[in-house]
């Protein structure tokens, strides 16, 4: 039997990186309205680094994310509004606030080896009556057994699904298969998959994840997201439709909204260029791209050299301050 896939649209959260967190309430409103009409299941709205992410470290939001969430909730008729929370950046206070204004689902995200910092947030979300899911980032950096162990921790805290999050877009197709299969065997809760397209594998890897039984899938209209972006929603839904597995999305409406609503608000083309390819190639967190390009300009460097060095130093998601550090060191060595 084929399980029905539930899609979470991430253009208004992961896509926040691609527009340097400059979304306006009008943009969020128009994207949510169109996605809702096309039948999207969940729409995630938050700063790119999750609730509370508006900082000098990651970039300040143009508009307070709570205002954006409020606007999204007001526009959505059937789609549910989701938020991202990374413990250490956001707290249960922001979570409560998002819940009060209508967010129905939270993904609590940690580095793949650090699941135990999510216990209080997963539990709190459940207590609030939200859907509470776990999100294991930089999944490519841990062996399968470690991923399983950490996913089981999240399940034990009450997560209704645990995501394999390929933050660097570095997982190869067989690695996705192996990981989803292992989690399906070890967990009773649902398994999810979040891809980045840095190696141009996002749609392919997502299809493999679905084939192996992942039922929570992330995608983004126009691919709008960090690095080369995420699994492109209009492409994925068209392919699923051709496979006879359309989870209830209007494919034409999805194509229309990509071209008419999302493309006009994009600040850069969502392509695999040498910078985003270097992310996938060296296994670096996708949101580092724009910050590394900026630092490269400032210090007169090739952004790829910064990214490769960051990969060597095994930086984790959120360590954007390392970019400045590494760039100034590389500049001194020149």
């Amino acid at each position: 039997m084929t399980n029905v896939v539930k899609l979470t649209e991430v253009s208004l959260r992961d896509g926040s990186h691609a527009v340097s967190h400059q979304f306006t309430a009008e943009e969020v409103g128009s994207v949510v309205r169109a996605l809702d009409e096309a039948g999207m299941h969940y729409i995630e709205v938050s700063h790119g680094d999750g609730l509370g992410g508006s900082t000098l470290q990651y970039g300040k939001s143009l508009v307070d994310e709570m205002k954006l969430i409020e606007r999204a909730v007001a526009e959505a008729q059937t789609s549910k509004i989701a938020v991202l929370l990374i413990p250490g950046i956001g707290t249960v206070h922001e979570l409560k606030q998002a819940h009060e204004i209508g967010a129905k689902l939270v993904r609590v995200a940690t580095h793949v080896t650090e699941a135990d910092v999510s216990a209080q947030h997963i539990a709190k979300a459940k207590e609030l009556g939200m859907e509470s899911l776990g999100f294991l980032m930089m999944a490519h950096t841990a062996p399968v057994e470690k991923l399983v162990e950490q996913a089981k921790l999240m399940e034990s805290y009450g997560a209704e699904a645990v995501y394999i999050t390929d933050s660097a877009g570095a997982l190869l197709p067989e690695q996705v298969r192996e990981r989803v299969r292992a989690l399906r065997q070890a967990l009773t809760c649902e398994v999810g998959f979040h891809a980045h397209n840095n190696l141009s594998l996002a749609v392919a890897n997502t299809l493999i994840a679905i084939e192996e039984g992942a039922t929570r899938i992330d995608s983004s209209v126009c691919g709008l997201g960090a690095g080369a972006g995420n699994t492109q929603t209009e492409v994925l839904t068209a392919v699923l439709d051709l496979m006879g597995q359309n989870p209830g999305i209007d494919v034409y409406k999805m194509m229309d909204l990509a071209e008419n609503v999302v493309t006009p608000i994009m600040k850069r083309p969502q392509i695999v260029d040498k910078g985003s390819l270097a992310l996938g190639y060296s296994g670096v967190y996708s949101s580092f791209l724009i910050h590394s390009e900026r630092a490269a300009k400032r210090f007169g460097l090739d952004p790829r050299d910064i990214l490769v060095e960051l990969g060597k130093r095994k930086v984790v998601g959120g360590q954007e301050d390392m970019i400045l550090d590494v760039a100034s060191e590389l500049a001194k060595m020149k």
Partner: protein
Amino acid sequence: MGKINVAIIGSGNIGTDLMYKLERSELLNLTAVIGIDPESDGLKKAKERGYQTFSNGIDAIKNNPDLADIVFDATSAKAHLVNAEVLKELDKIAIDLTPAAVGPLVSPAVNGDTYNSASNINLITCGGQATIPMIHAVNRVADVTYAEIVATISSKSAGPGTRANIDEFTITTRRGIEEVGGADKGKALILINPAEPPVLMRDTIYCEVKNMDAEAITKSVNDMLQVVQSYVPGYRLKQELIFDEDKVTILLEVEGAGDYFPVYAGNLDIMTAAAVKVAEEQARRMLHVEEEVTN
């Protein structure tokens, strides 16, 4: 000059590291280490080194109030709420290394002497101890409107307490940035990195200031660096300060003294080092008072 008797409650990693640091103090005399598990490594080590050991928690102080005038609490926030009451009753100075934040928040490099009369002193968080002196240094010459800190610690040095309640870290540190550091508004982030070999504690501080003066800020930061280095020798600037319009970025690294913790755990080391420093300030005052009385 004599020494002031001190005791440690909590025989875990922090308490044990503190024990080693206290051995070097010229003003503090460690008499006892108090835990709750007689088999704990910390209590065994304390016994080996000749200290009195107890495994009945705060009752040990209740039953032997003459053990110490200053008591370090390295238990947990929850336990400290109970311990704080008892210590207050017995008129002991409590130095709180838990995030309970019962007493005023103190960074020894900034307001270590301000709270001389406080009977309960809270040491904020490791990220707070590493960054608040620098925020204060920038604030005193340039007026900080917003300060944000990013503390990155190695996975191995993040204990179960930190992990179970990571929100306490961000919230208490933010309070410290504002109340002690002097920023109008603060924000704290904590990141845990599992890389092997473990990474040294790193702290990045971003300050937005009202009166940008790169020269004055650089001087003030370097002065503060020396103050903190006097009790945390491995506290250093990772890069030169980065100035950008109204913003200054400070990149720091904290290498521990390697007493009980490995050197990468600068985050744990800076807490115990700050605890000793604050206690010494108190001891100096108490000894001074005693001298006056005897004269």
